[in-house]
């Protein structure tokens, strides 16, 4: 990671982990991550923006920061880039829910030992970790593609993959938390309820699978691999 990007990551973490208000976010300039330096922004790329958006999801912050970042640049396909933003928030929320689940099962004792020591729990959380990794990979690759331009396919795959991961992982998160995860007081639902909402925002699985499927079928078997490796 470049020094600048590391600095952005640190600032983002400092601000967004403290249940910030809009003033704090604006003061840190997080809404200007894509704005050129000469215009008083951070002068970053989409990959830099990913750091900020992902952290929004990780810390379950409900500020219109993704929208502000989108407003700050000219994008040709606003809906597509909004979907990319949602995918990034979902990737962050999945990582947070995983961390929470790992922490909880290491602390909660039953049968005289931590839940984490039971293989049934370990195997479920391994699946969760894989799904979270996949969603984060897909988002990262989509943002990188956006920096290159013309990222429609990558964004479609990233949103669909995030939806798939959310469907599988939120079930595991709740199962390993027992009744505690079903309370209003415990913060798991800050993440899982957002993940369920986000799964239906900017295209559910049917929407994106249909779109990708139609396009891939149109291109035909002969182009499938060539297109994937372009």
């Amino acid at each position, binding site marked *: 990671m470049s020094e600048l990007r590391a600095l952005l990551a640190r600032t983002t973490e400092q601000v967004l982990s403290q249940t910030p208000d809009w003033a704090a976010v604006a003061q840190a300039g997080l809404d200007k991550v894509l704005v050129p330096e000469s215009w008083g922004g951070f002068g970053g790329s989409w990959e830099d923006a990913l750091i900020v958006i992902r952290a929004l999801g990780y810390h379950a912050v409900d500020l219109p920061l993704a929208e502000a970042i989108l407003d700050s640049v000219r994008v040709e396909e606003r809906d597509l880039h909004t979907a990319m933003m949602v995918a990034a928030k979902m990737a962050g929320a999945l990582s947070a829910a995983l961390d929470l689940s790992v922490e909880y*099962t290491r602390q909660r004792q039953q049968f005289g030992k931590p839940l984490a*020591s039971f293989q049934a729990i*370990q195997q479920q959380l391994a699946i969760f970790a894989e799904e979270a990794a*996949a969603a984060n990979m897909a988002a990262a690759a989509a943002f990188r593609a956006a920096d290159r331009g013309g990222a429609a396919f990558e964004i479609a*795959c990233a949103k669909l993959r995030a939806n798939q991961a959310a469907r599988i992982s939120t079930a595991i998160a709740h199962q390993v938390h027992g009744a505690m995860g079903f309370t209003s007081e415990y913060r798991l639902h800050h993440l899982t309820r957002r993940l369920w909402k986000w799964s239906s925002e900017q295209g559910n699985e049917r929407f994106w*699978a249909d779109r*990708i499927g139609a396009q891939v079928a149109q291109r*035909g078997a002969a182009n499938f*691999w060539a297109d994937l490796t372009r």
Partner: protein
Amino acid sequence: MPGFDFPPFDLPPEAQALRGEVRAFLAEELAGKPAVERARSWSGGSREFSRRLGARGWIGMTWPRKYGGHERSYAERYVVIEELLVAGAPVGSHWVADRQSGPLLLRFGTEEQRQRLLPRIARGELCFCIGMSEPGAGSDLAAVRTRARRVDGGWKVSGQKIWTSNAQHADWMIALVRTGDAEQRHAGLSQLLIDMKTAGVTVKPIANLTGESHFNEVFLDDAFVPESMLIGAEGDGWRQVGAELAYERSGPERYLSSIRVLLEFLRVVGDAPSEAERLLIGEMTARMWTLRQMSLSVVGKLAAGENPAVAAAVVKDLGTSLEQDIPRAVQALARPDCDLSGDDPFQRTLWYLLQTSPSFSLRGGTREILRGIIARELGLR
């Protein structure tokens, strides 16, 4: 947790340039090869094909020149491997040697072993097999009982290996054997290079559920192995085998094994798919694209000199699940007249992969073992 961090990795231009060359070579080599044959991927092998590939410089690509390698990048090797697998090339004869035996020798082997074996592997002349599993040692590999007894000038090895892929064709086996006491478990293990022509080595093929024989039993009855065939240090076998398994798990072959049936499905569906067909294609495409990004990220880690063992376990588990889901989902959605008895390429490929895909999450470490590795990285055990 670094094991779950997958930074994007872009293939450098020279790797992408190589892709065209490989595609052209394969288009010619494999012209007319039926889909079901292509679906065999690394279960199919041809010594002649391996030699031709070796002549192209596409085996041992990353190894030093002085051992017959080509000092190409991991990224270039990755491109060659994925093109071979997607085309369904018969890579089985050199696959193990190129992927794990060679790298193992490069890292732990003696100078003599490297000079003697690596150049021939890179020319595509040698077939290796992996002698890890035994009747009593599957997932619990440290339970290996095959014994190497010290004798003048080397060892006498006795015991039995099982599920040894390609043993009936192999020139060499790298065997995990017990040189110390059974009570020592991990510390008593060593790796030996065993010439398959040695007296006392008997190979008995085992038919798999399709009736074909790819794996074998290997009986070792006082087989003599010279001192010079010890890999690394005596008693270091466990550590070394861990490194070998990491090589085995980190490649792109861990998500591409069922691509042939997806391609066949695309072919029969044509450009007017039903909604259900579009949904299946879309789902599998997104998963495959994501896995390829993850696989590339593992290549990036290798190129950076990192040990991607955990990341590779993640890719392998997600990858083999995709490889198993594709044939099942395609079967569920195939047009009603597809009863798996048809002689057309689609049905034959589907039937072949439905039968063989259960092995994908067994070979190279089972799904449960991989998830155990991931759980350890999560700090759960």
